[in-house]
Structure formats: C-alpha cells, structure tokens
C-alpha cells in the first residue's frame, strides 16, 4: 500500500513564527504536492514538485515556500505564519505518468492554527 505521512495532525503556532510541515511518501513517486483545504473552496494547490530539487508554484504560493532535497520528502515552509494561513494542509504524491491509472495518494492532513 502507498503510504503518505505528514509530520503532525494538529499544529498550533503564533503569528510570525516559521513553520515547517513535513511530508514523506514510501512509494518512490516522482511527483509531490501541497494543498490547502478550506471550507467552500475545496483543495487549492500551493506548490508541487516533479523531481528532486525541482519545484513549481501552484495557484496560491504567496507566503509559502517548499523544499525537496530527497525524493521521498517534500516540506512546506511558512516563513512568517499569519492568521490567514490557518487551514488544513494536505500532501499528496503520484507517479510521473500521464496515464489513466495515475492517481494522487494523500496524507492524513495537518490542521494548522495560527494565533
């Protein structure tokens, strides 16, 4: 079974803190993604990576950065957390394959609260 794990299920931080969210997958997937999930907005893509050290901006990258030093690990960084970054953060991974059977596998999510 594909396993995508995230470092924390719940996280509480203060405004201005630097926050690291870690994601690890164990299926040798090339692609990794970070989404934020907000009620009524669905999932919105923050950043993605299709190879080690490669990263591309998604739809809402402002206030975030990412790091992918190893294939299995993809980190999301909030340089200076703000209250409007309070959200559920989901990590996902997939093969680098355009085919029908390529699907994204999701982690359990990290619910981040910024006070």
């Amino acid at each position, binding site marked *: 079974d594909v396993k*995508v794990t995230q470092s924390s299920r719940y996280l509480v931080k203060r405004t201005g803190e630097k926050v690291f969210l870690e994601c690890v997958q164990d299926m040798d997937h*090339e*692609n990794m*993604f970070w*989404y934020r999930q907000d009620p*009524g*907005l*669905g*999932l*919105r*893509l923050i950043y*993605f*990576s*299709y190879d080690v050290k490669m990263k*591309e901006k*998604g739809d809402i990258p402002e206030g975030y950065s990412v790091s992918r030093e190893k294939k299995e690990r993809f980190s999301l960084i909030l340089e200076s957390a703000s209250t409007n970054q309070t959200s559920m953060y*989901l990590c996902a991974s*997939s093969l*680098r*394959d*355009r085919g*029908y059977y*390529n*699907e*994204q596998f*999701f*982690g*359990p*999510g990290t619910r981040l609260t910024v006070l």
Partner: protein
Amino acid sequence: AQTVTQSQPEMSVQEAETVTLSCTYDTSESDYYLFWYKQPPSRQMILVIRQEAYKQQNATENRFSVNFQKAAKSFSLKISDSQLGDAAMYFCAYRSDIIQGAQKLVFGQGTRLTINP
C-alpha cells in the same frame, strides 16, 4: 485555466437509497481525466472512481458510477444503495492529459454527504 464546480455544498440521503452528486467543469482541452475523491471524517482522502475523456462508456466501481457528458462538461457521481460508511466529503477533480510536468489536479469545492439511518 480549467475550473471545476460542485454546486451542492451539502447533500443527504436515506440509507439504502440512491444519491447523485453533481460536478461541472470548464476546459478547452479534448483529452483529460476526471476523478471523484472521498474524504471521510478525520480520515485520508481516497480515490473513488476515474474517467478518461475519450471513453464514452461511463465508469463503474461497485455501487459507484458516473454519468459523463463530455459535450455538457458534466461529471456526476451516483451512489447506489447508500451505506453509513459513504458519509464523507466528496471532491470532483480534473487532470489534463499532458506529457511533461506533474499532472496537477484541479478540485471542485466539495459536497458533504450525510447518510440518514
């Protein structure tokens, strides 16, 4: 850019009945994939069903089936014989059929499905 719209924020159904969740999308592409994902309360998101745009036949997975209308850009999910375990947030998603890159998903807003015993 592609967009996905789920116009039903919440739906409810009696156990053992059938329910249909709606999804529409906007794209200028001819080849793409569509997905329905399920997110149970406090549990991980999982894939329910997928559809290739060039296949006219609607996908079916056990009690889950889709009604894919390419011209109308509509992709609804039908759940037959609803069970308590079907209660979840359901997301419709779109993926372009591209060669390079990471094959991103574009998600709809989600529909929260409640099953009444």
